[in-house]
């Protein structure tokens, strides 16, 4: 105390001074502070506490098998493998670039519409979807008019494709991973890939020596056929496969 008094007679330049109180037993700990909060922060605190406990329980009861050998060494094995793969890949890029250089077409000329208008290949499917006009429904109520323009129909088709891809994880749940486990979803995937190809063909149909009507019908038929075949094949393979998988995996680790 006396020590403090003598110090207080001098100007305090060290930042200490009245107002800063050393923590004593009365001062709440961080934990206590959090426990005392209300509303959303209280909820957050409670959830995190629960989650932490859950984690710990899971870890304690887990039959996690740890290796008693060293892992695959990052140096040199993994590093060299990565370097090799990357070099190969970049080498492939350079090879493509050197052997198949791009051309520079004629300069833009708004006055001349070229015979063939095409985006890059990876947009062919999207461009093909713009040509779905023939299946744009005509409503008899509207006297055979279409509810929307063919262009809008095409744009919407693009939006639908992206939307469908985006919601896949929310439609197909569960712990199955291999296509054989879920022939239906594998079939959807194969059908989708096929559809991307066939719509691409529709997009470039004026380059192909096939009747556009045939191409158009095939655009919808082929994906169905491909999906059906996939489904049939996987469904047939499934029984034997699932027997193994059940015996080895799902019995040990039943799906939630």
């Amino acid at each position: 105390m006396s020590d403090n008094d003598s110090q207080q007679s001098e100007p305090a330049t060290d930042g200490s001074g009245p107002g800063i109180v050393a923590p004593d037993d009365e001062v709440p700990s961080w934990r206590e502070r959090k426990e005392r909060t209300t509303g959303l922060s209280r909820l957050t605190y409670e959830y995190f506490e629960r989650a932490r406990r859950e984690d710990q329980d899971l870890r304690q009861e887990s039959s996690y098998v740890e290796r008693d050998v060293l892992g695959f060494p990052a140096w040199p094995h993994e590093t060299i493998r990565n370097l090799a793969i990357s070099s190969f890949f970049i080498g492939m890029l350079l090879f493509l670039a050197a052997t198949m250089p791009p051309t520079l077409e004629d300069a833009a000329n708004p006055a001349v519409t070229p015979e063939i208008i095409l985006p890059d290949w990876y947009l062919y499917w999207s461009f093909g979807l713009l040509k779905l006009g023939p299946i744009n429904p005509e409503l008899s109520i509207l006297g055979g008019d279409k509810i929307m323009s063919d262009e809008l129909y095409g744009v919407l088709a693009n939006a639908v494709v992206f939307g469908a891809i985006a919601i896949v994880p929310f439609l197909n749940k569960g712990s199955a991973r291999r296509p054989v486990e879920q022939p239906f979803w594998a079939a959807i995937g194969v059908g989708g890939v096929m559809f991307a190809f066939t719509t691409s063909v529709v997009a470039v149909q004026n380059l192909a020596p096939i009747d556009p009507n045939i191409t158009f019908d095939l655009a919808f038929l082929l994906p169905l056929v491909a999906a059906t075949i996939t489904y049939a094949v996987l469904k047939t393979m499934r029984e034997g496969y699932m027997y193994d998988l059940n015996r080895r995996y799902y019995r040990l680790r039943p799906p939630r």
Partner: protein
Amino acid sequence: MSLERKDEYDHNAWLKERDLSVVEKTYLMTLIWFDRRFRLVDYLEILENMYYKINLQMPKSHTEQYNLDNKFWYWYPLYALGSFSVIAYLVAALTGALLGFYYAPSTAGTPPESYALLTTIMADQNFGFMLRSIHRWSAQVMTAAVFLHMLRVYFTGAYKEPREVNWIIGVILLALTVGFGYTGYLLPWNQLAFWAGQIGVEMALAVPLVGEWAAQMVFGGFSLGQPTLQRMYILHVFVLPFVVTALIALHIGIVWMQGIAEPH
């Protein structure tokens, strides 16, 4: 509090009593000198921790742990497609920056200035032809790799809980990658570019309510011209690179956090 060092921290005394060789002594003195200033000890601990996390105690993979069939490695090369997207993206970024030194978006003159600049790059610049070629091919390969990567994720069921968010980020990345390709396709301002742009404007205008606004926003009007090229340029070299780089970092960060979905 006294500034005198307490005995147990008297490193000099400790050094003396250890009777070290010159090399050892120099090493320790240097180490101590730096440690006093930067507290290396803390960082060494982190490094050590990381080393053990990475190199030791690898858990068995699902296929090992449950003795599933050992043919799964056939599919492993497909797991490299995501990394291939990244590598191709980096190559495209590098060559794109170099191309950017010689390119400017302008439709003025006949032939349009941008087109003329591309002619210069291809005909007169040292290595310019190759540069453009590499840029194009890396873009094509990146797009292909992204599509195939998506298929690999789909067919290995790797999008399921808890990886839904990464799948959605992936869909956004797919759209942006295609957007990268499209905006780049317009930059040479040749016939293909012009008419691909025309289709873009028509697509935008077909949409009710927001269509005209979108056409003006993205294409700078209802017919193509200098504003269109300028916008495509800014999207291609400024907006998309930031957004896509950030999203890729996030995407791979999440993969790092969650781990690769294991086959079973």
